[in-house]
């Protein structure tokens, strides 16, 4: 009852981020420090952006560069700042019918899978839900000049329209390849007896997360200050340290980048320095 | 002064069936009015319209001189003065007490009034002690008496009864008849009832309406209706001398019907196969001496019952099978017939009617 009186910050984020457990680990610390409540809506990436666009949250934590930029350019959001990254891996059956094991070139691996698929040896499962994961996957196909929505692929390219966990399970069942973030892979590894990480370490497989504030001019009723406070906490030395120390299944799924300007710029945040100093200049 | 209940030119059409055709009559306050007529005559239809459950197709109903507006949705206020006992007993799935109490409850009576009202009503129908029994676990006659108690408990000024004693044993039927006659006598309750029991109509009703195929054939006191021959008698009243059997055509164009018990009847029609026939009691000639005549059927028997119907007398004669003959009072007196007199019967082949 008491907490109802506390100020509330609404954060919309993608399901996979929320499911990693990172936020349930971070937020209580922020809440005690600021005597605020954080309410987290986890939804599909597109849905989370739509929620923000309608002014139903104060800030978003997402990982999909194109959608993020569109959101900011449309005037819906401001102060996009890189927070952290994790990396994607390509997983597949132990038997590896497409022969991609050991490669560190994701694009090449995709090409081999497509060839295997054409022969009827390999299956690829896509989340097909315009999530960050799916967007990355699409960008890789695009580099190869291939279009997965081509119906002739339907025999081996399964557009599953499901969460990451569901896709991993499905890949395990079907002996298929899939692109996944490492965090979810770690959560599910023990249940996926037939699967292994086959390709990792490619730079294009790095997956950066951004925070964007909902534009207070568009939605004046939103808790703008609370949103800034939460963002400041995430990029603070303390917050970044907590992210770095977050472990899951003995591994550290997320790497902080907010204060690592070089890496941040390389991962698609050209204005990281300006945003950082803007946030740092805000009073606590 | 106007009638308590009046019906003018009432018609009721069901899909494919005209159940009431231009029915008009008036019932005085405090009168007992009996509707009699064969199955399907329209008695139930008429009573349901008077209870405001169905709407007439045309025509008007007047209560105390005021026309009933059937377009009103909630007819509760009009209906509060009316009690009805349905032909097919319907009771609620509750205790007998609650069933009888229902009409009082919806009238907002006090607990005490309800308790007393239910007690009195159950006493009238001789069902004291049945209060706690579930009404759906009663025997047919018990249930019908509960339905009567329901209607009596609300002390209506108009009581509509559709065959109220059909399921009652004779003893209870007598009691209920007497109760109805008292309710009418003392409470000036107007009663409109349908019955198949001519004796009940005779005992209870001040006037009787004969309904047939949706039309009123006659209205009047019992004596006026039943004591002179009328087509309706054979239409409605208990058919006497009904026999069924196997008929064989004879070469002469008549038929011999074996009606069992060694009795063969000759009929003027030509028919082979199973038939039901009827010999009107007024067609039977009665004599104290053997009859020699052109009548093809002659029998001998003993008088076992004599009923005086005013100007005519009915005799039940036991022969191979029982026959009822009907003669005038005058010839009855002339013949000096008494109980157990030996008599001879004769009837013509053409008096044997197939039904």
């Amino acid at each position, binding site marked *: 009852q008491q907490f109802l009186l506390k100020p509330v910050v609404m954060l919309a984020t993608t399901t996979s981020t929320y499911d990693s457990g990172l936020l349930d680990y971070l937020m209580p610390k922020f809440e005690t420090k600021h005597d605020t409540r954080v309410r987290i809506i986890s939804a599909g990436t597109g849905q989370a952006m739509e929620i923000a666009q309608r002014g139903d949250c104060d800030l978003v934590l997402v990982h999909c560069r194109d959608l993020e930029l569109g959101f900011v350019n449309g005037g819906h959001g401001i102060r996009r700042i890189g927070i952290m990254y994790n990396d994607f891996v390509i997983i597949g059956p132990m038997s590896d019918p497409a022969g991609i094991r050991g490669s560190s070139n994701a694009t090449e691996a995709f090409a081999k899978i497509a060839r295997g698929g054409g022969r009827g040896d390999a299956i690829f499962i896509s989340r097909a839900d315009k999530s960050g994961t799916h967007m990355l996957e699409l960008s890789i196909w695009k580099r190869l000049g291939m279009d997965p929505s081509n119906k002739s692929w339907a025999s081996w390219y399964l557009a599953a329209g499901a969460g990451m*966990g*569901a896709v991993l399970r499905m890949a395990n069942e079907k002996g298929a390849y899939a692109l996944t973030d490492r965090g979810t892979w770690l959560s599910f590894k023990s249940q996926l007896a037939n699967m292994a990480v086959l390709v990792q370490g490619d730079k294009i497989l790095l997956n950066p997360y951004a925070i964007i504030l909902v534009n207070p001019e568009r939605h004046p009723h939103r808790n703008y200050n609370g949103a800034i406070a939460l963002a400041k906490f995430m990029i603070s030395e303390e917050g970044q340290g907590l992210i770095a120390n977050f472990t899951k299944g003995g591994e550290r799924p997320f790497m902080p980048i907010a204060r690592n300007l070089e890496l941040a710029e390389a991962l698609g945040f050209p204005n990281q320095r300006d945003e950082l100093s803007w946030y740092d200049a805000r009073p606590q | 002064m106007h009638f308590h209940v009046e019906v003018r030119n009432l018609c009721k059409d069901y*899909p494919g069936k005209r159940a009431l055709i231009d029915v008009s009559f008036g019932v005085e306050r405090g009168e007992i009015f009996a509707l009699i007529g064969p199955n399907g005559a329209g008695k139930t239809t008429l009573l349901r319209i008077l209870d405001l459950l169905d709407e007439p197709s045309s025509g008007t109903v007047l209560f105390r001189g005021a026309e009933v507006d059937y377009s009103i949705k*909630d007819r*509760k206020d009009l209906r509060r003065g009316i009690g009805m006992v349905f032909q097919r007993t319907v009771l609620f799935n509750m205790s007998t007490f609650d069933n009888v109490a229902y009409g009082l409850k919806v009238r907002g009576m006090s607990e005490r009034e309800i308790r007393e009202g239910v007690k009195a009503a159950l006493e009238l129908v001789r069902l004291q002690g049945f209060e706690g029994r579930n009404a759906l676990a009663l025997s047919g006659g018990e249930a019908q008496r509960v339905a009567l108690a329901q209607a009596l408990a609300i002390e209506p000024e108009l009581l509509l009864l559709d065959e109220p004693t059909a399921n009652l044993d004779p003893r209870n039927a007598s009691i209920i008849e007497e109760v109805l006659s008292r309710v009418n006598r003392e409470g000036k309750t107007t009663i409109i009832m349908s019955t198949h029991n001519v004796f009940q109509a005779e005992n209870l009703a001040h006037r009787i309406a004969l309904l047939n195929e949706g039309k009123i054939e006659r209205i009047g006191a019992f004596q006026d209706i039943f004591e002179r021959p009328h087509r309706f008698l054979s239409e409605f009243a208990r058919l006497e001398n009904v026999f069924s059997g196997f008929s064989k055509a004879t070469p002469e164009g008549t038929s011999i019907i074996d009606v069992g018990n060694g009795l063969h009847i000759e009929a003027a029609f030509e028919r082979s196969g199973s038939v039901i026939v009827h010999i009107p009691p007024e067609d039977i000639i009665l004599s104290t001496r053997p009859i020699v005549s052109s009548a093809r059927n002659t029998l001998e028997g003993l008088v076992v019952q004599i009923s005086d119907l005013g100007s005519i007398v009915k005799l039940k004669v036991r022969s191979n099978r029982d026959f009822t003959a009907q003669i005038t009072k005058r010839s009855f007196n002339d013949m000096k017939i008494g109980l157990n007199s030996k008599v001879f019967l004769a009837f013509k082949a053409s008096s044997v009617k197939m039904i």
Partner: protein
Amino acid sequence: MESPFIEEVLSITLLSLRVSGLAVLIGALAGVPIGTILGFKRFRGKRTLMRLMDVALRSFVNTLMGLPPVVVGLVVYLLLSSSGPLGPLRLLYTPTAMILTQLIMVTPIIIGVTMSAVGGVEESIREKALSLGASNWQATWMVLREARMGLLTAIIVAFGAAISEVGGIMMAGGNIRWFTRTLTTAIVTEVELGNFALAISLGIILLTMAFAINLLLTIMQLRGVRG
């Protein structure tokens, strides 16, 4: 299991109960009367137009019994969203929004099953009550009393639909921990995390709770059986 975990499960269970319970309660208050009106066969045998309308209306209600929860949740979301017509009420992502969502889903079910239950009561019961001087309301009440068993089935089906529903309350309530998380949304979250054992445990809690409530309703229901 540690106590905070139990505390959380408890609060989640109570919220589930509160949301679905209230949705069914309000849905019954609205749906039983509507279902009763539709259940009476008053249009039958009357003019063809009336009968056509009757059939259309019933089909419409029957169709609404199959409203997809996500769609309902989405519509409620769009209504309550800050940019929606009811935005100023600030009800989005609250238990009230969830109740509203389930209410929309549950009411047609209650109407539909009530309709059929009331339609199954012999007309003579209503006539008998009217004949004894009952008002239309009182007579209708008597019909409902006789249709008790069917009415309780309506409640039970509606409660089953509400308590097991997830897509709608997820959209409208947001599945916010400690605030709008119910047993079903928690189950979905756990399934997504791959914690199947926990998901199934939560499912068992949900069913146990539902069983307790149904035991009560069933005892009430059987009391209503004739004979």
